[in-house]
């Protein structure tokens, strides 16, 4: 037994190593670069690395070089919290970007209040900013706003009776709930409410049920991944001609590829990132959107995603705040961040306030219609 204890001790000693390095302004990030949420964390990490390089090449912030420290939390809240502690204590960062997922974000959030370090999350859920936490901000819009935007478009077409067909995964379930809660205030009535499982390969029965509902005028499909593409194909096969809406969760070229021709006529709320060339000349978001796409394509040879856009905005908001604060004191950076007014990013135009730590309104979403395999903005 003592021998086993000694053996345990030897193994323990073998693990004690590692020390951090020092630089000018240090910014930390904990992202889901691998694991189930890698589709979020990977473009986010790439975007941040690209931006830091760009920034240092052009002289850094107020002449000071920026160092970015990125950890991969694999969307595990447990790891995220450990890395957040490490960023704050060991790496002594002035601010943290990240939490690709809501779970990771919420696990980290209490630390930033304790240590008084500003934190910009890249996750979607409303709970991150409602109630407002002094040191926690976020850049993505919420699914509640997506519902409001879709409903606004539906009512502007003079329609009001809506059928929901929702995925049962985290995204679909959460958005369905938000849609149900904002329906009345948005002037629409949910007359049908169907759902499907993540791996279902045929949603014809649910669509038939919805189409058979009395007075149905439009269909909305909150969902993520493969499901919405299947629903879209089934919708076309059934020959339905009701206005059909997808969510921002599938706002990517990938969705058009998956759904093929059946996607024509589908509308969805999305960020301007999908329509860089169709933005008006005087659109404040035109410049950041085109800059981001050009830089990302040059660095990585592929198109950036909406998620990378959240990181782009978070980084620029932070750099802007540090410049305005004229200091690297975390509390002063936080104050400057909260005072951000009319900052045009790729996701939307941000104006933070003590009551609003997301800073976006419905104009951040554009309603797009799919036409011949491409995106067309719908005039409003």
């Amino acid at each position, binding site marked *: *037994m*003592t*021998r*086993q*204890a*000694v*053996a*345990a*001790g*030897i*193994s*323990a000693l073998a*693990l*004690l*190593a*590692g020390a951090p390095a020092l630089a000018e302004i240090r910014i930390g990030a904990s992202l889901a*670069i*691998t694991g189930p949420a890698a589709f979020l964390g990977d473009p986010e990490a790439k975007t941040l690395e690209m931006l830091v390089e760009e920034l240092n090449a052009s002289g850094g912030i107020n002449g000071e070089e920026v160092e970015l420290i990125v*950890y*991969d939390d694999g*969307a*595990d*809240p*447990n*790891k995220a*919290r*450990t890395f957040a*502690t*490490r960023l*704050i*204590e*060991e790496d002594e960062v002035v601010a943290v970007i990240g939490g690709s997922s*809501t*779970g990771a974000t*919420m*696990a980290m*959030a*209490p630390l930033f209040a304790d240590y008084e370090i500003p934190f910009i999350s890249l996750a979607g*859920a409303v*709970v991150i900013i409602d109630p407002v936490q002094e040191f926690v901000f976020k850049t993505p819009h919420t699914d509640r706003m997506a519902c409001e935007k879709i409903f606004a478009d539906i009512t502007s077409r003079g329609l009001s009776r809506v059928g929901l067909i929702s995925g*049962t*995964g*985290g995204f679909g*379930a*959460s958005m369905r*709930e938000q849609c149900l809660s904002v329906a009345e205030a948005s002037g629409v009535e949910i007359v049908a409410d169907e759902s499907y499982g993540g791996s279902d390969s045929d949603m014809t029965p649910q669509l038939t049920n919805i189409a058979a509902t009395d007075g149905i005028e439009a269909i909305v499909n909150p969902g993520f991944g493969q499901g919405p593409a299947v629903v879209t194909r089934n919708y076309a096969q059934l020959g339905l001609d009701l206005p059909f809406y997808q969510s921002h969760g599938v706002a990517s070229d990938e969705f058009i590829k998956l759904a093929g021709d059946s996607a024509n006529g589908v509308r969805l709320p999305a960020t301007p990132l999908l329509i860089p060339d169709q933005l008006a000349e005087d659109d404040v978001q035109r410049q950041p959107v085109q800059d981001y796409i050009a830089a990302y394509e040059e660095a990585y040879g592929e198109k950036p995603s909406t998620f990378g856009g959240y990181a782009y905005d978070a980084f620029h908001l932070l750099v802007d705040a540090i410049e305005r604060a004229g200091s690297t004191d975390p509390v002063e950076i936080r104050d400057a961040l909260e005072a951000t007014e009319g900052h045009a990013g790729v996701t939307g135009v941000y104006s933070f306030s003590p009551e609003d730590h997301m800073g976006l309104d419905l104009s951040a979403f554009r309603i797009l219609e799919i036409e011949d395999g491409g995106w067309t903005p719908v005039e409003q």
Partner: protein
Amino acid sequence: MAGQGTTTDAAPADTGRHAYLKNGEARRPRIGPGLRTFLIFAVLVGLGALIFPSSYFYRVGTLVWINTLAVTGIVVLLGYVGLVSLGHAGFFAIGAYATAILPSYGIPSPLAMLAGVGMAGGLALIVGRPILKLSGYYLAIATLGLGMLIWMVLSKEAWLTGGPDGMVVSGMNARNLFKLVGLKLKSAEAWYWVAGFAAATGAAIAVNLARSPSGRALRAIHDSDVAARSLGVDVARAKSRAFVISAIYAAVAGALLALANGYITPETGGFMHSVEMVTMAVLGGATSVFGALVGALILTALPQVLTVFADYEHMVLGGIMVVTMIAMRRGLVPFIADLWNRRKS
């Protein structure tokens, strides 16, 4: 050894009492094995606190002790009895979620913890009897199913558990425990001591269990069900008891993690977490509580060390696993202990 002679020379009654003990063991000073384990763990916990420079190290230390506690439960089940469970994250999550949910219904955290542990133990008792009739792969699959069911409830019943996004755990902070006795600690340090104490206690109990008659019955089952039964061991009951005990270990660890983190998601009850626990036990050596400690230490702390070569992290971890499984089949701790023995003799 000198001790051997004394034992054989002793009065016949004494010989009878010690006859089954190995060389020298009878001559050891009279500290029970459980207490000795507790003291060794306590020294390691204290040693950690001495060398840790910041809260970050305490945080990683806390996770090591919490994982050690959970894996000690796996040692009881896998190392003592030889039963494989791929659903223990489920029990872990029951402990965690009970601690998270019950306080919002007016039940204080310590009671919520107890309730969660009770629920996990109760569930293990109820499902244990039918499930434990299976063995080998069949048992692994049945427990995997159980874990999946618990995970599904946690991620689907959003009104209760917050769904896939998880929920905030409000309630007890370990710091307040130390305030009662006039000690002011940071919460990361406070949780480190609490988790360390829990792991030490858990390990001591597990070691004592192994030395008790029912522990010997468990190890007899490990070698052969039939032989154990012919010796008068109630095999079904003994297995069920081990299953309940290991579920309780997992639930206590889950409750501690929930409180220390302040936030939980259904992933704590996910399949990968179950696999992780079994991996820790097998890597360190599933037959010993020190194996639990080493396995938990390596798989918790090594990813932190490896962030420097983040791109190769999975390769290094995988490599360590493969080498351990090929060269040291019984796990690290038994292997190093064997080396030590051989060198001495």
